[in-house]
């Protein structure tokens, strides 16, 4: 059964994928045509960069959207449009998308000729620049935040430890050719090469930056735009290099046209490069940002608009200014399998059955901001395969929760001695819970509390800022039983990026992403100082995940992961997924063209245009 | 004799209050000739300070009801417009107050305070005014006047501060100086010096001086005429020697009896029993009657007016005149001779 369109009472159409949006007409995510010129102005309360805009370690969606659309071209990339088509790999710097040879161990790329760096470097990009990027990823001093994706390249570890001067697994027979030799077949390797850290980096500039985030103030562009002030940077020696004037992390990031950009090496299906300038500025007053967008003083924002601002626009018949895209992200409540009462699978199933997902959706601003999620990975990442799109293992009328079914599950658990369908023991009272104190997430708290109260579970809620909450939840020794308002977004469009959350190899004392501790072994538990409840065996999906990971991309791989998703939802139950998030954007009336970059989950900066006459 | 410098004619000053008008001054008449010193004596609450604040028109803030006339060289100051009154204060009347530490501005140098008086009324440059203030300080007997002029009030002794006030009040050579209890806050030795200075300046400048005090002894040396006030009215007045030699009002007798006599044997101080009457609701008839040892029924029937007894000596008492002095001595408890 395909997902039904859900509409706000006022006729606004939303959807998790642009395929559905196209049927709605005026609120479709692609606006038609645009002309050259003008400045695309984006305001935000914070850039939120995790590595100061240094591509080697920068791990945030905002930055990736800017890199991909404007600054950094990678060997393979995306069209940066909405929907499943936006998740398909296309050639960017490479002449074509290769297939692996040598039993999946070798990947060979031929670079397009005539692609130049922007000032101050100016020269042609060669295969050696790709090698530089990987040398930086491997360099432990630079703290590449997703470097773990590239450990399959042979020789990365040896280079990292300093025992080798070059990475043996990357060879450059000539300036146009680069070959990757892997240690094991990695079917999603192409996706990993589409990440910004793998983009070309000029060694003559990057050698001067030896700390994490240092290069972020002087990123040399390979794309249609460059950071303003790039041309003024003196790269004669490391001591003469100054930060580019156009980037001030606390106030602005301005990008202007790259004079060395050659459109013939690119394709307008990927990049249209219509505006003359992109201006990202900080505005600490969030309400003011959206007032300015409405007044035409700004065009877009990195922040989501408040639900009230959206409602105002809809009421005044301007819903074409609201744009959405499926964020390929899931919002969920995570349960710790080692902590009572969630160590009992029947309790976990009961929680899934009782949860008022419609209420949580409302707390987040309504259907515009996301569709009800019923399993781990969003449908779009399975290509909306019919095997998963209707799958709802814990259904309820109107997604409001099914008390009877939940109670039936409780009765099968060890926490209901009275067999009344309620959690009777003290383990269910004042369960320590971490919640997040942003305004939407605060709205979720009462919904969760009242749903769990129906099962006799009461919570002891601790509200923290997003970063503090993530810190506490990811520290194993804190033994957090329940964490609300958790979210996870894809790194690239392969379900393996989500499944890493359930592998035992991901478990770490701090920075632990496997908060549910799926696959925890007694040995590992002892190492971490965690107690597994007596007679309990924590389920593991390591074998299944490994098996799926080996399958080449295609229907077989998708089906494998679909089955793993179902297995997790029915036999492990680590989460209560409730929202398949949308990215919501409010744009100004001056924007004549807008699209959603599905690969980065941001505005498609390579497909926007403005009409300067309408800006103020 | 020329017209009096200051003449107060049936002055009443009533302050409004929630309980009714407070009759601080209730039918008061006084006069002062040029070149003379008038001593005005009374307890706290007798109205002596209020009388002269009214003369300076400094009571306006409290919005009192004032009737009567106060004539300065024949001009009724109570009817002058504010602007003209400002030209009276300073150039024509100077006033000094009881506590010079609080009466001088703590944040301004004393020389500047005197100089500004000059510059407010005369078209004089800053340097000239300062020179004049230094000269004035020297005139009141302050040594190192130039250095002292640059000091602040808290750096001077009590006596010196009062000299500053005198210099400030007299620098424009007014016709009248009102000194409201100028020595009450000072030691007795300093008190004598200050009174001397005032008296000296009076003869030198030929001005009239009103010396207000609660103590008869203070005014005894310097006053030419004396007025005794009680409950807002004058009860006895006359030439100083006459009042002291032959006091004719029982209140005056009481005041004199409270003055310890130097040289006499250890005598008991005889206080006047009782306390001053309420000014809101004064007793009928003579205001002093409730405390008077000599009262009789006629005292409470009518409010006695001042009656001349000859030679400028008047009192407001209805005791029969012949034998009044004897009666006093007869009834004095200790029996010694009253001080002259």
């Amino acid at each position, binding site marked *: 059964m395909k997902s039904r369109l859900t509409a706000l009472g006022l006729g606004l159409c939303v959807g998790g994928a642009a395929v559905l949006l196209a049927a709605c007409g005026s609120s479709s995510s692609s606006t038609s045509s645009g002309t050259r010129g003008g400045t695309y102005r984006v305001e935000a309360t914070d850039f939120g960069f995790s*590595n100061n805009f240094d591509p080697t370690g920068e791990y945030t969606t905002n930055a990736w959207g800017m890199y991909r659309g404007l600054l950094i071209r990678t060997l393979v990339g995306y069209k940066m449009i909405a929907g499943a088509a936006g998740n398909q790999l296309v050639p960017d710097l490479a002449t074509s998308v290769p297939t692996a040879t040598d039993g999946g161990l070798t990947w060979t790329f031929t670079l397009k000729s005539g692609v130049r760096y922007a000032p101050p470097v100016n020269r042609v990009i060669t295969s050696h620049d790709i090698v530089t990027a990987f040398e930086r990823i491997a360099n432990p*001093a630079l703290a590449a935040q997703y470097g773990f994706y590239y450990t399959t390249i042979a020789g990365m570890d040896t280079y990292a430890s300093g025992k080798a001067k070059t990475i043996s697994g990357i060879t450059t027979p000539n300036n146009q050719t680069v070959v990757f030799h892997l240690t094991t077949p990695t079917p999603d390797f192409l996706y990993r090469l589409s990440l910004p850290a793998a983009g070309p980096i000029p060694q003559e500039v990057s050698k001067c930056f030896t700390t994490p985030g240092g290069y972020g103030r002087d990123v040399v562009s390979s794309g249609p735009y460059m950071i303003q002030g790039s041309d003024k940077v003196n790269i004669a020696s490391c001591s003469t290099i100054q930060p580019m004037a156009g980037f001030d992390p*606390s106030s602005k990031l301005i990008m202007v046209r790259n004079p060395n950009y050659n459109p013939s090496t690119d394709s307008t299906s990927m990049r249209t490069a219509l505006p003359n300038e992109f201006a990202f500025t900080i505005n600490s007053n969030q309400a*003011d940002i959206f007032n300015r967008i409405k007044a035409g003083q700004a065009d877009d924002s990195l922040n989501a608009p408040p639900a009230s601002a959206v409602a105002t626009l809809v009421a005044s018949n301007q819903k074409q200014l609201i744009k959405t895209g499926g964020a390929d992200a899931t919002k969920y409540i995570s349960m710790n399998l080692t902590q009572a009462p969630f160590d009992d699978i029947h309790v976990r199933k009961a929680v899934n059955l009782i949860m008022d997902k419609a209420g949580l959706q409302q707390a987040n601003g309504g259907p515009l901001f996301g569709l009800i999620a019923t399993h781990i990975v969003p449908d779009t990442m399975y290509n909306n395969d019919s095997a998963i799109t209707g799958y709802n293992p814990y259904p309820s009328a109107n997604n409001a929760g099914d008390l009877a079914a939940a109670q039936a599950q409780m009765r099968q658990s060890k926490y209901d001695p009275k067999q009344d369908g309620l959690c009777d023991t003290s383990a269910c009272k004042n369960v320590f819970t971490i919640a997040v104190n942003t305004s939407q997430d605060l709205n979720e708290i009462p919904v969760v509390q009242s749903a769990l109260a129906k099962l006799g579970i009461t919570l002891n809620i601790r509200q923290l*800022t997003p970063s503090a909450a993530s810190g506490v939840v990811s520290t194993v020794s804190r033994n957090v039983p329940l964490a609300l308002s958790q979210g996870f977004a894809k790194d690239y469009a392969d379900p393996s990026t989500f499944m890493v959350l359930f592998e035992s190899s991901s478990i770490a004392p701090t*920075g632990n*992403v496997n908060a549910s501790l799926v696959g925890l072994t007694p040995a590992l538990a002892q190492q971490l100082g965690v107690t597994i409840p007596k007679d309990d065996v924590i389920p593991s999906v390591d074998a299944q995940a490994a098996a799926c990971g080996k399958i080449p991309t295609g229907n077989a791989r998708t089906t494998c992961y679909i089955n793993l998703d179902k297995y997790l939802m029915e036999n492990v139950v680590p989460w209560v997924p409730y929202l398949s998030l949308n990215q919501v954007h409010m744009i100004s009336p001056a924007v004549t063209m807008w699209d959603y970059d599905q690969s980065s989950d941001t505005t498609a900066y390579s497909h926007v245009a403005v009409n300067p006459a309408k800006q103020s | 004799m020329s017209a009096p410098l200051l003449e107060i004619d049936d002055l009443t000053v009533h302050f409004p209050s929630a309980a009714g008008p407070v009759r601080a001054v209730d039918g008061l008449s006084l006069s002062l000739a040029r070149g003379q010193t008038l001593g005005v004596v009374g307890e706290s609450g007798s109205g002596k300070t209020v009388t002269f604040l009214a003369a300076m028109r400094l009571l306006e803030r409290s919005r009192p009801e004032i009737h009567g006339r106060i004539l300065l060289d024949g001009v009724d100051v109570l009817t002058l417009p504010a602007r003209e009154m400002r030209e009276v204060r300073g150039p024509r009347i100077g006033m000094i107050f009881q506590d010079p530490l609080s009466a001088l501005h703590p*944040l301004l140098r004393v020389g500047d305070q005197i100089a500004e008086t000059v510059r407010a009324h005369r078209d004089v440059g800053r340097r000239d005014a300062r020179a004049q203030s230094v000269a004035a300080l020297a005139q009141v007997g302050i040594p190192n006047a130039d250095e002292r002029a640059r000091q602040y009030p808290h750096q001077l002794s009590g006596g010196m501060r009062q000299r500053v006030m005198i210099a*400030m*009040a007299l620098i424009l050579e007014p016709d009248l100086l009102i000194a409201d209890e100028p020595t009450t806050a000072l030691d007795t030795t300093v008190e004598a010096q200050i009174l001397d200075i005032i008296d000296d300046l009076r003869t030198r400048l030929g001005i009239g001086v009103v010396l207000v005090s609660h103590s008869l002894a203070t005014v005894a040396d310097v006053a030419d005429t004396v007025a005794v006030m009680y409950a807002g009215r004058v009860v006895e007045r006359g030439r100083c020697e006459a009042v002291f030699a032959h006091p004719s009002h029982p209140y005056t007798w009481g005041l004199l009896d409270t003055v310890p006599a130097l040289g006499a044997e250890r005598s008991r101080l005889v206080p006047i029993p009782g306390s001053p009457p309420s000014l809101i609701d004064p007793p009928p008839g003579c205001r002093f009657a409730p405390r008077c040892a000599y009262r009789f029924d006629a005292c409470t029937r009518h409010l006695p007016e001042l009656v001349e007894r000859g030679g400028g000596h008047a009192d407001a008492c209805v005791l029969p005149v012949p034998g009044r002095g004897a009666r006093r001595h007869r009834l004095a408890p200790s029996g010694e001779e009253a001080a002259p």
Partner: protein
Amino acid sequence: MGRYILRRLMWTVVVVIIVTLITFVIFYVLPSGDPALRFAGKEPTAQVLAQVRTDLGLNHSVAVQYLLYLKRLVLGDRYGWPGLGFSYSSGAAIAPQLWQRAQITIQLVLGAAVLWMVIGIPVGVFSALRPRSRFDRASLFVGLVFISTPVFWLGLLMLWLFSSTLGWLQGTGYVAFTTDPVQWAAHMLMPWITLSLAFAAIYARMVRSNMLDTLGEDYIRTARAKGLPERRIVTRHALRASLVPIVTLLAVDIATLVGGTVIVETVFNLQGLGSWVLNGALNQDLPVTLAVTLVATIAVSLLSLVADILYAYMDPRVRPE
């Protein structure tokens, strides 16, 4: 006087050490988890975490970190003197940002201070000269309204009224004085007004009550008895004495506002010290928090010293002989 100042400056150093120590302790005692996590990305490996930790200097014990901090503060670090380090979240050196943001906050605070004195003193004086008059009552009422109004609401109201509705003034943001003086003033006007209104009301009441007290003093009576014009009595005699405590209070108020303008800065998008330290504290950015705390502490200490000196200058009775 010189020795007195020297002694006070030495105490300032002691206070700075104590305050920075307390800040350090709070930072590490707060249960927000490992700060390095915040800067190590979504799925940090142990290696990345270790590197980030080393890079941020978090691999030493808390005591060593504190001593290193003090040492760098006094001797300077790789960015120059004073050694304030770099911001965890942006990797940028703190010192240049500190000067830049401090300028904005100082402009905001000083402008507001001028405004609230210009409004508050005359209102206070007129109220004291005509107590219980209609003006006095009206100014009391209006003052209460401004004191009770939440600052952020007032700021948003200003924006709505003057920027969106009437269009007289520009909206949020900051324009440097050197870039365009007129625009600078136009952008600062609403923040100044928003910040100053409550203070103006408070200062007006203080001036009023001081003036009323002063006007009842004996030396005012003397001044009248000298025949001085009323205007001179009010300004040179009464106001001068009334303003002494006000001026000293002003110095301390300015100092405490140095870190306290965060709401106005956020509403009007001024990149000042207040919003910087708030974000720093929320994001576990210790160097930023320390830097602003340092500035605020020094400001309070120095300005209260200035207040004491001013008091002695204005009131000769207080001078140490």
